[in-house]
């Protein structure tokens, strides 16, 4: 079992400043658990570095990709859908801001008939609000997909 106070420093041994490293060395010289852990860690580092560092594709890779690209033909034309969704989304944001501004403006006292009209208008506005929010969502999704 490694000494808890040294565990972090043992794991960062290679990056430790000189003074700190000497302290760890001095401790490891006296503590067999930490010494064994440090040796095992060095073994892990050296083996995995030797086997994984700079792993590259096989020499034929680029040739195979180019052959497949030739087979695929020319690059696809850019789709207009993201641009269209972008436009719709910005339109929705402007509509939303307009609706918010309309709601925030204090209303003058109105008659019952006018109140009913106002209620219907607000109901319609709420629907528009929801649709606008949906369109903004679609736009965000399109951006994420892009």
């Amino acid at each position, binding site marked *: 079992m490694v000494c808890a106070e040294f*565990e972090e420093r043992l794991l960062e041994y290679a990056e430790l400043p000189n003074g700190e490293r000497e302290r760890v060395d001095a401790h490891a010289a006296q503590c067999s658990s930490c010494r064994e852990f440090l040796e*095992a860690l060095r073994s892990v580092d050296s*083996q995995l570095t*030797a086997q*994984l560092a700079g*792993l590259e*594709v096989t020499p034929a890779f*680029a040739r195979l*990709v180019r052959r497949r690209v030739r087979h695929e033909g020319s690059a696809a034309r850019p789709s207009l859908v*993201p641009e269209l969704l972008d436009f719709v989304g910005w339109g929705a944001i402007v509509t939303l801001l307009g609706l918010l501004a309309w709601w925030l403006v204090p209303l003058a006292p109105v008659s019952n008939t006018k109140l009913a009209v106002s209620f219907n208008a607000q109901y319609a506005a709420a629907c528009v609000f929801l649709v606008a929010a949906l369109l903004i969502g679609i736009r965000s999704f399109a951006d994420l997909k892009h």
Partner: protein
Amino acid sequence: MEQEIHACLDQKRYQEAFDRLLPEFQNKVFRLAYAMLGDAGLAEDIAQEVFIRIWKALPGFRGQSALSTWIYAITRNACLTALKKGAGKRESSLEEPNVARAAEEAGVPPARHAEIDVLRFLDQLPERHRQVLRLYYMEERSYEEVARLLEWPMGTVKTYLHRARKELAEAVARSKMERGTA
């Protein structure tokens, strides 16, 4: 290099842009795929798919993110799809034929059998620990590069790496003790 590729894209010279980005990113894409899938043969297949996707999508690249960020995102998505399909379930070590072949061609020495083979303990680690660990050693132990390729926060990368290296070191130490007492 990215600026030159961007210049080609701005002028709709897609073939030239692709010819420049392929040698620039082929190893990074392959390593990221290998880190995520743990199989060099499969990682090469996925890397090929990634470049075909890049080729098809190049005209639509709007430069909202860095080219490298875009390419790594495509790679991660392709790997996640492969993992979902179960293609990456077959975990491997560098001693498996396809990985050994890739390693041999890349001039990587085989594991020294006198030592305890660390790679055999890799399979016992959680998937995310394995991914971060492979990438860390492939990318010459750069935390920044691992965080950039996986698009994970640096703190997460460090935490996973510490846990993974600790588990491996403990497994190696235990194995050495068992050998010593056997």
